[in-house]
């Protein structure tokens, strides 16, 4: 196993103009400071040392392979990314149209809609399938940005949480 850290003490002991570390070595902030003060260059491979991506350990690699194979409460494996959109607010003409238009704009496909109006207030639940590869974040932001205190509030949740909670 290679050296995992380079400390300030290592820099002082090396007493050289250049220190070459192996890929994946973590150089402590104090070592960087000591090297800068002493005019020592810390290199790794071809160029100056840059903080490597964290090596999470030998088990992490196998976990990455195994995690996707854990059984999911799932009956349609193609439905990778779906969202549940809920909206509540004061009822007015065109609310459903406004929300579904925004969903269409984000290339979402509405699978299920339910709406109820009680004493002038509407409550709406939509299940939406997102395009393969579409960003859930972008979808969520676009929809939730429609919320305004004077009109209605929209909330977007990943459908997976409902599957986990309500299906086995």
């Amino acid at each position, binding site marked *: 196993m290679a050296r995992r850290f380079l400390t300030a003490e290592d820099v002082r002991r090396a007493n050289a103009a250049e220190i070459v570390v192996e890929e994946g070595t973590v150089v402590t902030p104090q070592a960087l400071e000591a090297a800068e003060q002493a005019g020592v260059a810390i290199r790794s491979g071809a160029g100056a040392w840059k903080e490597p991506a964290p090596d999470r*350990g030998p088990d992490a690699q196998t976990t990455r392979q195994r995690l996707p194979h854990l059984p999911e409460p799932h009956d349609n494996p193609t439905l990778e990314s779906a969202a549940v959109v809920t909206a509540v607010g004061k009822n007015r003409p065109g609310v459903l149209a406004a929300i579904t238009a925004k969903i269409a704009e984000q290339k979402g496909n509405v699978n299920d809609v339910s709406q109820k109006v009680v004493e002038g207030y509407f409550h709406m639940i939509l299940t939406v399938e997102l395009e393969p590869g579409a960003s859930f974040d972008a979808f969520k932001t676009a929809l939730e940005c429609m919320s305004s205190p004077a009109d209605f509030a929209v909330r*977007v949740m990943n459908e997976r949480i409902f599957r986990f909670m309500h299906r086995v």
Partner: protein
Amino acid sequence: MSFSDREILETIRMVELETLDIRTTTLGISLFDCADPDLESACEKVYAKVVHHGRDLVRVAESIAADYGVPIVNKRIAVTPIAWIGAASGAEDLSPFAKALDAAAAEVGIDFIGGYSAYVEKGFTRADRALIDSIPQALAATQRVCSSIVLASTKAGINMDAVARFSAIVKETAARTAAQGGIGCAKLVCFANAVADNPFVAGAHMGIGEPETVLNVGVSGPGVVRSALQRLGPDADLLAVAETIKRMSFKISRVGELVGREAARRLGTVFGIVDVSLAPTPAAGDSVAEILELIGVEMTGAPGTTAALALLTDAVKKGGAMASSSVGGLSGAFIPVSEDAGMIRAVEAGALSLAKLEAMTAVCSVGLDMVAIPGDTPASTIAGIIADEMAIGVVNHKTTAVRIIPVPGKKAGEKVEWGGLLGTAIVQDPGRFGCEVFHRRSGRIPAPLQSYRN
């Protein structure tokens, strides 16, 4: 897959009204490779490694919370017990490690880091001793570091020398943080049968046998269970009560399982365990005591409380076991007195005594947690309280812990405000009889017969 409106609204109600949340996502980081004969270099490595691995934790947790719409309240880090890492340095004072951990926690934006710890159930190494002796200084000089010491196990028995030393350390830690009501002790806990994958502070640490890095999740949700029992009403029989709790625990734990898988995937690490625990907060409705009262005791601490808690803990575990194949940590129900509005009420009303609380710990998942006692309680009495709690754990093959705060200058019945998650406590009376001779004997209480299972 389609869901009924009822199912969708149930999930949203749990999050919005019943304070369902993921209590903690805790990243465990092994520090074994940070040991160094030079103390300063060791601390540098500890800081660098924690920051290197912990940097993404808060961002990942927040992105998951946003995607799934479930709050992730705390992001924390647990590390290898510092006594094991500090041993190579031979230092007499290991508090520089605490400062390095504190600085690293601040750098990655988390509020607590656990692992200023040692295992001494059978005896002390030099480093264990150095670590324990430095606890008061380490906790007074840092804000985010939590310390846990293992004093007993079913396999080893109870190290009464360690209990005695720990009790003195508790008093000293309280004295050093006297101006804040002895708050240092809120970050200090001792264990019997400690679990190596506990994601909850103050006891979080990465024990032996854990991987290089691991992501553990602690779920919560007393509010969800409480509301379900409220809907069930007072006429349902106890089997129905257990079934209701189990179902709710299943749903809560499934959220933990999902978040654990997702956080591990996004961080590129191992998914460790889901700790299925009902962890109360001072917030209204987020109370374990109120669940016990809904099960049917007039006030927590009244006769029937221990049995109700046993039912609750067991049902929570059963629901959780079905929801995740990786149930671990402490899993059960927490009863931290100052952090639970219902418990505080019960102490105030005189319903919940220290003795009853001790009985309850025999069937809950942890132990005497966040209990305030008078500042002038002798160390020998604190040692007696700790030894009793350790004995419950050792004999029953369970984890027990003590987090006790001798509040400087306060007498039994007085109130102390710690604020935030730590809440408010009423100073409890440990009684006027002591255990001086027992304390003075020192030595070890041998492992019980039930430990010989080999």
